[in-house]
């Protein structure tokens, strides 16, 4: 697989598709809140603030157009979560889908986990393209026949029908979290998964909905002593006993479930000492980790905090092996970003299929890719203007000061309402899905 683009390696990213309304007036329910490819990359799922899940399926590559990979078209849409009301606490529970995780495919059906703040659901997505016809006792429309008119017997046979994709909730995992769920992660054993909220992590069996094991609990006895919360958690891709969780203080803890039932004692603690020269009122906020992702190999993990992406080697806890500045020019603007709440935005990050490139989002509908091997980075934009089919995306540049060159954008003209928080990379190919506020852009490399 090729890299980020530009310079030493030749990947050029082209616009492929955009999904969603063109309207500038964004309905709150349409705001995309999560994006995830399945394990083969054939399916792409998005969740939104309205509690809906939309699944796109990649069309088979056309033999007529070998230059084009298949397009993604809507495969299934369903309402995963509804708004709820907690009567005891007089609190509304948002239906916003926080995370979607696919299960590895075992049979013809597809399974995914989707979660809102409090409840996780296992959905089965199955296809139906045949229907039985020729019943003896029923007409085709379902009405019962008059038994006296039945003179012969026949065996019903399956006839093809228009493809119907059905989504049905197979399991509902509820009432296990007091605080807001921020992560779910399926174990490599394909039997268990974890769910993490601000203070606790629970281990579930996919078959059992009425109980879960609490494996991490950082709630202090006295809530007044609360200093950090859990911000993300993930299972190791290969080792079913290992998982990590990140905190609002910028630390990552790796835990081994073989060590004890309750993994409050970490096996490894990954923390980089703070640079005292960068200390400000907002140092704690910007060091809070918003996402943690293992590499496909399982050797590395990536963390995203407000201004940087860091790659950690699991064998070295003292500091990350690589640090990439996503938008360092925002460091001097932290106060304004605090005022308009942008400093609390939780950006996600993702690896490409062979762990050579990482990608994350920024503001002004920019997203960034960092090529680890070639030590290059590129900034691209997801916008309707560059949305002609197969048009190559032009690298963007933010001017940090001094004279603004042509085609550069100054920091002050960045639109902080246009943020890319969710991105996903196809597990094998150079196809990426980038979510702006209410649109999903699909880009692929130029073949």
């Amino acid at each position: 697989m090729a890299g980020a683009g530009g310079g030493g390696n030749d990947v050029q990213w082209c616009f492929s598709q955009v999904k969603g309304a063109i309207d500038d007036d964004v309905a709150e329910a349409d705001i995309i809140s999560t994006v995830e490819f399945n394990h083969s990359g054939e399916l792409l799922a998005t969740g939104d603030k309205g509690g809906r899940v939309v699944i796109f399926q990649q069309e088979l590559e056309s033999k007529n157009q070998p230059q084009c990979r298949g397009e993604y078209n809507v495969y299934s849409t369903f309402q995963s979560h509804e708004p709820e009301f907690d009567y005891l606490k007089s609190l509304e529970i948002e239906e916003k889908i926080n995370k979607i995780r696919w299960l590895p495919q075992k049979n013809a059906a597809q399974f995914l986990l989707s979660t809102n703040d409090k409840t996780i659901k296992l959905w089965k997505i199955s296809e139906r393209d045949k229907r039985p016809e020729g019943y003896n006792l029923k007409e085709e429309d379902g009405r019962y026949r008059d038994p006296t008119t039945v003179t012969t017997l026949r065996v019903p046979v399956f006839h093809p029908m228009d493809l119907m994709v059905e989504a049905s909730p197979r399991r509902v995992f509820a009432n296990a979290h007091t605080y807001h769920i921020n992560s779910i992660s399926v174990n490599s054993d394909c039997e268990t998964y974890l769910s993490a909220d601000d203070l606790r992590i629970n281990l579930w069996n996919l078959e059992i909905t009425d109980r879960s094991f609490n494996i991490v609990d950082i709630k202090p006895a006295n809530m007044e002593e609360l200093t950090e919360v859990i911000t993300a958690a993930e299972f190791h891709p290969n080792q079913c006993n290992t998982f990590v969780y990140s905190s609002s203080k910028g630390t990552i803890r790796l835990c081994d479930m073989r060590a004890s039932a309750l993994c409050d004692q970490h096996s490894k603690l990954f923390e980089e000492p703070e640079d005292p020269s960068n200390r400000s009122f907002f140092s704690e906020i910007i060091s809070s980790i918003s996402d943690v992702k293992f590499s496909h190999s399982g050797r590395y993990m990536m963390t995203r905090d407000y201004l940087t992406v860091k790659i950690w080697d699991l064998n070295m806890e003292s500091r990350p092996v690589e640090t990439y500045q996503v938008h360092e020019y925002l460091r001097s603007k932290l106060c304004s970003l605090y005022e308009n709440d942008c400093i609390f935005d939780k950006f996600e990050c993702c690896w490409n299929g062979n762990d050579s490139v990482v990608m994350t989002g920024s503001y002004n509908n920019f997203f960034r890719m960092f090529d680890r091997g070639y030590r290059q980075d590129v900034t691209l934009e997801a916008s309707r203007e560059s949305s002609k089919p197969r048009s190559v995306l032009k690298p963007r540049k933010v001017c940090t000061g001094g004279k603004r060159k042509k085609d550069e954008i100054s920091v002050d003209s960045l639109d902080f309402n246009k943020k890319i928080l969710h991105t996903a990379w196809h597990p094998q190919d150079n196809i990426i899905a980038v979510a702006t506020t209410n649109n999903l852009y699909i880009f692929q490399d130029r073949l």
Partner: protein
Amino acid sequence: MEYKVEAHRIMSISLGKIYNSRVQRGGIKLHKNLLVSLVLRSARQVYLRDYYGGICLSAQQAREWCEGEYMDSEQDKLVPGSTESLPESDGQSEVAVDKQEPSNVVESHAALDVESEASGEQDHAENGVLDSGCSELKTPEESPEASPTCEVSNVVTTISSNCISGPPPSNPKQATETPNGCQTDDGESVEEKLHEPIVPHTCTNRKRSADDSELTDSLPKKTKVMSSTLISKNDEKKAETEEMDTSNVSSLITIFGSSFSGLLSSEDGAQPDSEAEDSDSGQICCDQMLKNLNPWSTAIVAF
């Protein structure tokens, strides 16, 4: 100086965020509020350090003044309707909330710092609280009317587990106008004295204990009151706003110093229920302050 202004602004913004988070859909977000409280704490520390630095300059003068006046005033500190001007100002600087407290603690910076640092992490707020007493002493410079708020502020600040400080409650302006009836002349003289940086009198642990339980309940309520007051006062003049924000902040500071529970009360479903009654509890000595607080009690109950 600009750090102080900036810190103050950040504190106000943070309080606004915490206030707004209570009405957001989906319930209070623990993570965001934790981060906001950390910012609030950092800003407060800078703000108070700034004050503190200024106060240290004439600590000597202040010490003399305090020692001279304080012993007289402390008896009157929390007496409602007291006509002593000195107690007002002294009370404010003092932080001693309890009438029963016989001794005034006039501490040097070093002592203050040592005490603060000794307490450990939970006392960060307390540290700030201690300092806020100091900082509040400065407010008269901005608006001389701040002095009479001492009693209420004292009440408010006592909440912290180990320290007392006397941030004036919001609306010091009103409080000042008729602090205790016949204060006016004395008030001026007091103000003059207050203009000198005064070493903050930190209440030592022993002072606080008597009042802790009573005041604890009042604090969360006051915090909320402060928040709402804070927001409603956005249109006022900067000096007044600053002053009131300071008092709001100070009150909230003590909340954060002593507990996160104010923040989490709705998260956990518990509602502070005895607040309304505490608003009129005996610790509030100044009649005017009482009048000011009553309208707030409805706001409190609303929360």
